[in-house]
């Protein structure tokens, strides 16, 4: 038992040093790219003319349909060969993670826009609001509150997804734990790593929930509605986060598409 704890004591500094840094960089960069990709693709799918929406749809299906690891290797091995541009390990990881989870996020954005009640869209048309004002002042604040629970799930998926970045030669927590295994033994190394991942996921999840509450309150909704919305989102997303995140069919009301 004391072996175990001295092993943990040896392992932690290395896991929390370089390993944590690589994991957090991949996560933070991936999260920024993910949200950007999700918002752009989701908006285009929902709002743009049909031909553009189809292109966005194809991109989304491409990235959702092939595997994260395949995409990672594609950016790492194939893109440099084809284009001569070598992104380097860190950027490869950030872009692959961001695009993969961003494609799932695009479905969350599209589903949330779909779920904004039709009357809200019609009112803005009746007031002949310009598109930018309509989005900024009426639609987006409501859609944002709806999409945050979906993004919460995706953020947790993204943290777990960063465990693949050692495949493109980054020394993240998983890689460091595998190295430490020889020095301090299997359980101290990997249990410490698992607990670190778990704590990161908890922190991110808590922050996102705080954001959800804030977005709901800005719409003038009280705690009861917040809990209600969270339950709805959990229902929509149970089992749907990976394959069908918040897409129109899965529970979100199919209305409000203004054309």
């Amino acid at each position, binding site marked *: 038992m004391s072996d175990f704890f001295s092993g943990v004591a040896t392992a932690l500094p290395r896991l929390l040093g370089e390993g944590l840094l690589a994991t957090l960089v991949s996560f933070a960069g991936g999260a920024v790219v993910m949200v950007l990709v999700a918002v752009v693709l989701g908006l285009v799918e929902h709002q743009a003319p049909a031909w553009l929406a189809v292109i966005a749809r194809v991109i989304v299906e491409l990235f959702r349909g092939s595997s994260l*690891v395949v995409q990672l290797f594609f950016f790492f091995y194939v893109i440099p060969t084809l284009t001569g541009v070598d992104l380097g390990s860190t950027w490869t990881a950030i872009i692959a993670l961001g695009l993969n989870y961003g494609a799932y996020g695009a479905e969350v954005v599209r589903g949330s826009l779909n779920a904004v009640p039709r009357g809200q869209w019609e009112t803005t048309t009746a007031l002949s609001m310009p598109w930018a004002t309509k989005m900024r002042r009426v639609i987006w604040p409501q859609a944002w509150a709806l999409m945050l629970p979906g993004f919460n799930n995706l953020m947790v998926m993204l943290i777990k997804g960063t465990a693949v970045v050692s495949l493109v030669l980054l020394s993240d927590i998983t890689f460091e734990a595998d190295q430490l295994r020889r020095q301090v033994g299997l359980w101290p190394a990997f249990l410490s790593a698992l607990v670190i991942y778990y704590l990161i996921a908890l922190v991110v999840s808590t922050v996102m929930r705080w954001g959800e509450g804030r977005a709901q309150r800005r719409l003038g909704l009280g705690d009861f509605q917040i809990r209600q919305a969270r339950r709805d989102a959990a229902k929509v997303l149970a089992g749907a986060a*990976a394959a*069908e995140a918040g897409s129109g*069919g899965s529970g979100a009301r199919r209305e409000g598409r203004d054309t």
Partner: protein
Amino acid sequence: MWENELFFEAVPLLLEAFIKVTLVVTVLGTLIAVVLGLVWAIAVRELPPLLAAPLRFLVDFIRMTPLPVHLLVIYYAFNSLSAMTVGILVIGVHYSTYMAESYRAGIESIRSGQWEAATALSLPASRTWRAVILPQAIRNTLPSLGNWAIAMFKDTPFLIFISVPEMVTRAREFGGQHFTYVEAMTVAGVLFLLASYPTAVLMRKLEKKLAY
């Protein structure tokens, strides 16, 4: 850049890995996950709180930590098991924690009148689950179980961490031997798309059909 020769060499090789490893892992992993997920969902409801709380924590912990780490731990902890066996077991258990959530949502969607009716008829717990709750709950859960199975299929390349010779592992080896990854990785990506996109469309149809 693109050599047809290498492409035609890669296709049968990767197809073989796809059928012999990727599909086998997906099918067996899904079986494990479907059964265990239901076990977790029912156990958390039926066990006394003192046992249910740790179980719930364990399931949440597995769900919120990365699959590659689980693979490595079990692979090194059980030397006697082959990498393929470890892969199937770990991916199955990992996804069972997701499926437990789907089952839970399905069970919670059953109206309380159904439970009350079962109590009023003094049905034993096993019969309540078997004859009343599960037939209704599973209908709601089926599409999301299918979606998790597709997600699992796309996560099989994670088995590269324990060197299971699945499709992407083979594609990388092939690329390494021929000093170019373009053909092999393209084939691997396209095979994934060809298999997962139609299944996803099918699941969407199923979801619409089963919706009340």
